[in-house]
C-alpha cells in the first residue's frame, strides 16, 4: 500500500534573487503549519510541465523556526530537460504545487566540533538554515562561497552581513578563486567538511581532502545532478507487466511514474541509493549517471538507478 504524504502548497511570493535564480515562497493550501525540518533537508516539488509529470528536489532555505512557509531557490538551466525552466517561466504567484515532506540527506554532523561549508552557485541554499541554527546554538562554522559574478550569485550580501567574519566570497569574474589546498591543510581536528555545488567542484575538493589525509567520516556532500537527457529508449517493467518509452528529456524514473507504477525514491539525483532497481535483462549498454553504485556493480550490469541513469540498445527489462 502506498502512503501519500505529499501536500498542496500555494506560491505566495516569487523573487528574482540573482541573474538566473528565483526564490519561491510556499504556503500550505489547508492553512496548516509546515512540517518542522532539520537544516540540510530538501523537498521534492511535483509539477505538470506540458502534460508531463516532473519531480525535482530543492533544498529548503527558509528558517526552521518559521512554521508558516517554505522557501526554495531555483536556478534556471537553459537546455535542461525541464523543471527549472517551467518553474521560472510558467509558475506565477497564486499557482498551486505539490510538495513532499522534508527529506534530509545532508544533515550537519551533530558531533562535529567545527563545520566548514563550501558552496558553489545555487549550492548556497542548504547552508542558509544550517548557519542559522548553528549560530543560535553557538556552533562553530565558516562558509566559503564561490560565485561567477556578483549578479549571478544569490544571497552573498545577506550572508556576509549576517556573519561578517565567517563568510568568504570568491567572485570568478573578479579573478578570485579559493585555494582549497591552502584552506584544507590546516583545519583543526574534528572539523567536518560539507560541499554543495557542481560535480566537478565537489570531486576537486574531495580529492584534495583525501590526499591531505582527511577522514572519510568527516566529508559530506550534496550534489544537484539534474537527470541527463539522451536518446529515447524502451524499458519493460517485469513486476507490473508494462512497457514504457523514456523520452529524450525524461528520466527512467519519471517515465515509470508516468505509467502509474510506484517506485521508491529520495534524492532523485543518483546519490542516495533508494531507487536502486534490479536489471533482469539487458541487450545494450546501461549509461550509469549515478554516484551510488560501485564500479563492480556497474560492470555486472545487474543494477540501475532509474532517477538519473539511461539505456542505449534494443531491450531493457527491470524489476519494477
Amino acid at each position, binding site marked *: 500500500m502506498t502512503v501519500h504524504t505529499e501536500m498542496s502548497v500555494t506560491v505566495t511570493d516569487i523573487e528574482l534573487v540573482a541573474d538566473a535564480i528565483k526564490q519561491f515562497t510556499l504556503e500550505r493550501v489547508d492553512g496548516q503549519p509546515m512540517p518542522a525540518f532539520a537544516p540540510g533537508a530538501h523537498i521534492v516539488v511535483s509539477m505538470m510541465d506540458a502534460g508531463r509529470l516532473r519531480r525535482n528536489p530543492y533544498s529548503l532555505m527558509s528558517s526552521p523556526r518559521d512554521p508558516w512557509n517554505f522557501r526554495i531557490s531555483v536556478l534556471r538551466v537553459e537546455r535542461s530537460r525541464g523543471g527549472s525552466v517551467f518553474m521560472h517561466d510558467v509558475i506565477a504567484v497564486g499557482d498551486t504545487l505539490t510538495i513532499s*515532506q522534508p527529506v*534530509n540527506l545532508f544533515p550537519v554532523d*551533530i558531533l562535529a566540533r567545527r563545520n566548514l561549508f563550501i558552496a558553489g552557485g545555487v549550492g548556497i541554499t542548504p547552508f542558509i538554515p544550517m548557519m542559522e541554527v548553528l549560530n543560535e546554538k553557538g556552533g562553530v562554522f565558516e562558509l566559503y562561497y564561490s560565485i561567477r559574478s556578483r549578479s549571478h550569485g544569490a544571497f552573498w550580501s545577506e550572508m556576509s552581513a549576517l556573519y561578517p567574519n565567517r563568510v568568504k566570497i570568491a567572485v570568478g569574474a573578479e579573478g578570485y578563486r579559493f585555494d582549497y589546498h591552502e584552506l584544507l591543510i590546516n583545519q583543526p581536528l574534528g572539523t567536518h567538511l560539507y560541499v554543495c555545488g557542481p560535480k566537478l567542484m565537489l570531486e576537486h575538493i574531495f580529492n584534495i581532502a583525501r590526499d591531505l589525509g582527511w577522514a572519510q567520516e568527516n566529508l559530506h556532500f550534496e550534489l544537484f545532478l539534474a537527470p541527463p537527457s539522451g536518446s529515447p529508449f524502451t524499458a519493460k517493467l517485469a513486476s507490473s507487466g508494462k512497457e514504457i518509452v523514456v523520452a529524450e528529456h525524461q528520466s527512467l524514473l519519471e517515465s515509470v511514474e508516468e505509467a502509474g507504477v510506484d517506485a521508491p525514491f*529520495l534524492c532523485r539525483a543518483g546519490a542516495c541509493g533508494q531507487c536502486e532497481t534490479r536489471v533482469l535483462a539487458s541487450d545494450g549498454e546501461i549509461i550509469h549517471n549515478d554516484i551510488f553504485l560501485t564500479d563492480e556493480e556497474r560492470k555486472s550490469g545487474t543494477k540501475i538507478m532509474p532517477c538519473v541513469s539511461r539505456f542505449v540498445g534494443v531491450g531493457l527489462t527491470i524489476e519494477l
Partner: protein
Amino acid sequence: MDLKFTTETYRDDFSFRNSPEAIRRYPFPFHADSYMYAINMEDHVAGKPGTAYEHPIDVDEHYISEMADRALVLKEDPLRCQALSHMMTAQWDTLELLMIHQSIAYPDLFTLERDKDKCHWINRPLGIDDKFIFGDRSTLPYEPMEYIMRQSQGDFCIVDQRDNSLWMDAGMVTCQADWSLDFDIGMSFMEWHAPVPMAHELGIFDRALKFLMNVQQGRPARRLNWTMTVNPRLDTSPENYHKWGSEKTTVTKENIGAKLHLRCELQSFWRLPRSNALLFPIRQYLISLNDIATIPKWACRMHRVLKTIPDPLAEYKGFSRNRQLAIDFFAPFDNGQETTKGADPE
C-alpha cells in the same frame, strides 16, 4: 473508545489481567502457521477500530498501572533513562510527537494547547497539568524525554543517524526483553544487535538498517517482535536477572496457562523532524497462555509455531526451558485444520 483503567501489579503478587476486550485487541504476532525471523516491516498506518493498531500511539486499559511500575523501576535504577548530551533537540521532537499523537487520538484523556512555544499539557489519567515553554528545559520537572516517557506506555529509543549507521544515543527502557540501555547506549545499530543469533548471517540487519535509515517524515513504519515471559513481569531486565531468573523454573504442567505469557512488541519507527533522528517506540503487550486459549485460531497456531522455532532462537528468546510444556499446553487446541490467513482472532 471508553477506556476503563485497571489497577494491577507487574511484580510481587502479579495481579495483572487482560479484560476480554484487551484479549481481542491483542496484536497477535503470528501471521502464519510456522515461524522464521524476518524484518516484516510495514507502513505504520491507522488500523481497524478495536485493534492495537487503531491509533499510531496506543493507550490501553493498563496505562496507569504500567506508568506506576515504570516509576518504581526508575526509583531503583535511574540509569534506565539516559540521553547523551547531543540528543536534546531529538528529546523535544519526541515530546512533541508523543503529545500530539496521544492528544489527537484520546482527546478525553490528553490535551495539548499551543501558542507558538507556549504549551499547556493536561494528562487526566495521571492528574498532570503543566505549562511549559517548548525548547526550554528549565520549564519542565524532568528533561523532555523523561517527562513524556513517564506518561507513555512502552520503552523508547531515540537513535541518531550519522556515518551511514544509527546510534543508540537516548532512551527509556524499563520493560525490556533482556537488554540493557546503560550498556548499549552510544552503540551503532550493528553493535547493539550483536547478541541476536542467526539474523546477522541471513543479512537481515543489513537490510533492516538500510530500511530504517530511509524512514521518512510523515511515514512511520512498524514491525512486531515477540518473546515469552514467566509471570506478567514488565521489568525483565538483565540488571535484575539474578532476581527474576529463577522464576523461569517455576512453570509446571498445572500452572503454565496462568504463568507463562506471550510478550509481543509492537515496534514503530518515526523520523523526527528537527533533529533528523529516529524514534523507536517499543510497546509491549502481555497475554497469558490461558487467555490465548480463549481464541481457538490463535491457540491452534501457537502449537504449530512453537514446534517450528529453531533452537537458537528459542534459546535467545529465553523460553527453551519451557518450550515443550507450552507445546503440550496448546496441543489439544490443534484440530489439524488449516487456519485462516492473517493474525486476526477469526
